[in-house]
């Protein structure tokens, strides 16, 4: 059994089924507050499902899941979903839905936009931003909500190197500011740069769960060895 008192996330034997297919199978996982965990694995291994389950977008069919309340977490999608409003309004909207007064929301939003390098874009129409700027805006929106747990689902998969760098910088700052981060990624360099721990998934379950350095130096499961070998090739 896992102790939920000093944990950010505690999953115990969790399985999830969607449309008759098992998309998560017997997942047991404890994440302490302040960790930065990278989730690796091939496409379809269950990385997104794991993040969606933690975020409450996916229901558990069996096992127990303790996660922060939805108000205490934020999810960054691979393709950011932005509202058809200004950059500033996208951030203040999220705050206002949680009862923050309009003036305060605008002030917090401007502060987070500045922190994400978007201060000069505040009045632009959000959907005219470039892909990298859109993802930075999604991060600013998430950051404004002060989540204890930030889930990022391949946040840089579609971005150019410079944008990848700035997204990583923002994730790092949020981590330093106290957020627990779970990052699904295909980018090994990114996992090494940001995470201290790697969860490797295959076939809808966790195959390895080890410190990042150990994992990359000596993967143990056949799946992880094959995954890393293909990536190196």
């Amino acid at each position: 059994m896992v102790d939920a008192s000093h944990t950010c996330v505690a999953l115990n034997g969790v399985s999830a089924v969607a449309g008759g297919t098992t998309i998560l199978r017997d997942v047991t996982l404890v994440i302490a507050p302040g960790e930065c965990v990278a989730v690796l694995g091939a496409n379809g291994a269950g990385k997104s499902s794991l993040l969606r389950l933690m975020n409450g977008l996916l229901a558990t069919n069996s096992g127990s899941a303790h996660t922060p309340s939805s108000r205490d977490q934020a999810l960054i999608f691979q393709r950011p979903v932005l509202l058809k409003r200004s950059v500033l309004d996208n951030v203040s909207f999220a705050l206002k839905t949680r009862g923050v007064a309009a003036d305060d929301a605008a002030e917090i939003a401007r502060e987070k936009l500045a922190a994400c390098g978007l201060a000069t874009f505040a009045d632009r129409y959000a959907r005219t931003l470039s892909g990298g700027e859109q993802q930075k805006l999604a991060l600013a929106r998430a950051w404004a909500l002060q989540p204890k747990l930030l889930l990022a689902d391949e946040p840089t998969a579609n971005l150019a190197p410079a944008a990848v760098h700035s997204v990583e910088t923002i994730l790092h700052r949020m981590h330093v500011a106290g957020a627990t981060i779970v990052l699904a990624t295909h980018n090994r360099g990114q996992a090494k740069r940001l995470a201290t721990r790697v969860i490797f998934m295959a076939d809808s379950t966790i195959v390895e769960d080890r410190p990042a350095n150990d994992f990359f130096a000596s993967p143990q499961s056949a799946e992880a060895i094959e995954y890393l070998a293909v990536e190196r090739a």
Partner: protein
Amino acid sequence: MSLLVDSAAEAIRMVASADGKLLEIAVLSLRVSATATLIAAIIALPIAAWVAQTRSALKTPVVVVLNACMGLPPVIVGLVVYLLLSRSGPLGALGWLFTPSGMIFAQTVLITPIIAALARQTLEDAQIEYRDLFASLGLSRWQSLVTLLVETRFSLLVVLLAGFGRAIAEVGAVMMVGGNIAGETRVMTTAIALETSKGELALALALGMVLLAIVLVVNGFAHWGKMWIGRRYG
């Protein structure tokens, strides 16, 4: 060909001379159809929002009925509303038969399903895009609906224009319920039908051109309004 040219000349003459009767008819057309569109929107948008997000077993039947009702024949609507509003009918006490109010009633019945059906599809398509974000942000059902309506505002404006277009172009229902009384319930379409039956084809066609121009102007204003809102975001 000469009929077209004559009609166009007549249409320009009527508009240029600011013909009092024409103005009266055009204003009544606009007033009746715009009011019907407004009332239909107030009824239809909540229905559309409900159907778009419900998991009720009633959803499929409601969607099928709404979609089918987009094809309601105006004369049938006219007949039913006529029966409702006639002295012996259940709503006879309102005294709306052969008045603009009755015409607004008929057009509202006609276009409410159109606005509801099109808005339902618009909202449901948008929902696919926003669902995960709203759930992840922890939005309540009410917050999600309101945000979805705001996000689809431009598409919904086009839906309202489709409803308005159907209303102002419609002749059967307003003819039956309004009676085409000169100076009382005569609108553009019933005037055109009357002039055609009298053999005044050039006049009828000229009225048709004016009607088309009115619809163009309304759509132009709507588009301009949309651009104006869009420009606020640079």
